[in-house]
């Protein structure tokens, strides 16, 4: 089992499960709901660019 240092602060990205677990253990944590941009096919990207919005 991995043990964390006593004074740790967590910046959690994407998978909220880890953030919830940290908060549940009274560990200071900040969650960022970030995900990588989806990998789209070139033609889809081009159509979206032309459509605007």
């Amino acid at each position, binding site marked *: 089992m991995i043990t964390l240092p006593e004074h740790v602060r967590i910046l959690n990205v994407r998978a*909220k499960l880890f953030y919830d677990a940290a908060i549940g253990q009274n560990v200071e944590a900040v969650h960022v709901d970030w995900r990588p941009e*989806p990998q789209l096919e070139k033609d*889809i990207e081009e*159509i*979206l660019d032309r*459509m*605007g*919005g």
Partner: protein
Amino acid sequence: MESLTTIDESISAANAIAVERMMNAEPILYEADLAYKCIPGFGTKKLILHAGPPISWAHMCGAQRGAVIGAILYEHWAETASDAEKLAESGEVIFVACHNHSAVGPMAGVISPNMPVFIAKDRATGKTAFTNFNEGLGKALRFGAFDTQVIRRLEWMKTTLAPALKAAVKSIVSEREGIALKLIVSQALQMGDDCHNRNLAGSSLFLREIVPHLYGKVHEKDASESYNFLNSNNHFFLNLVLVASKVMADAASNIRYSTIVTAIARNGTEVGIRVSGLGDKWFTDNATIPDGLYFPGYSAADANPDIGDSTITETVGLGGAAMAASPSIVKFVGGSVKDALEMTNTFKKITIARHPHFTIPYIDFEGTPTGIDIRKVLRSGITPRANTGIAHKVPGIGQIGAGIVTLPILPFKKALREYAKEYGI
């Protein structure tokens, strides 16, 4: 080819119209009758409507086949399940998607000629939509069950419940235009329903509308039996939410240049979407297994892939989009209250409006995210998520759980490519 600015402006204007029409439609329940008497196209043919995009018998999943077998037995087109299967294979029975007949049905969504249906219309346009009656949970035709108990209940619904509800609705219509379904949906959201997988409040509110018109219109025994059935079925209002949602979604359909989704439906083999500016075309991918909670003795290995027209609710800002309104539903479909709130918040990233009539007390009466834009789905990589029941994959068993399903992205890509062709982009 039109300039970028013109296309962008055309899409924005069209989407604003589509979503305004969707949110301002007023579905009114005004009639109940047998399907062959009111849904155009039934006539004397052996026609069976089903959920989701169009599909042939050969490609139907187990739950869908089970429901079709049950419908054939119910219609007395065959006397045994084996003969019913042979008849379905023979090509003599015509299978058409519910949506293609302005209808919607949860799970297998099977509607055969002698099944009772509700009819709702849009107050402004008079355009109608249809849905079948809800049988309750567990062993039900819509989950693919077809044993004697299921068929007997369907027969009772035809001979006792349908005449009672027909008379009650007629009595209401003699006093006013009908039952304003949108008002019930709005209230139900305030009372903890998501209006897809939790319909306890909606069913109770519907009962309050119906009961004063139930007694005295049919034999008292039939009225009492009907009351007891409605009172014990917490999901009876589900089908009425569906028909209300269909009316709302159809109000937003067929608007040139609009990229707003006007239908999401699954037949247990494929999931399909429709887009306003692309008319009635379906864009599909394989249906997936929902992530859910299972009844004792069952697991994901037993599950039928995602099935039903009930995602018409997510299409109009209910169900998954309104999950934050229904903290208690997580006990039925899995997850936490935080997850329910996050699901509503995630819908904000793929929609263009907040519903003025569907509000959520828990988040300061914010409107539910409404109007799924295929462009936002593709740019964000976020697809709609829905609450759903889970049927057994083997015909004849029925419901085995409930959960959450995430739509695949391929239908949105297919729709975008078709859009580019249609509008010369």
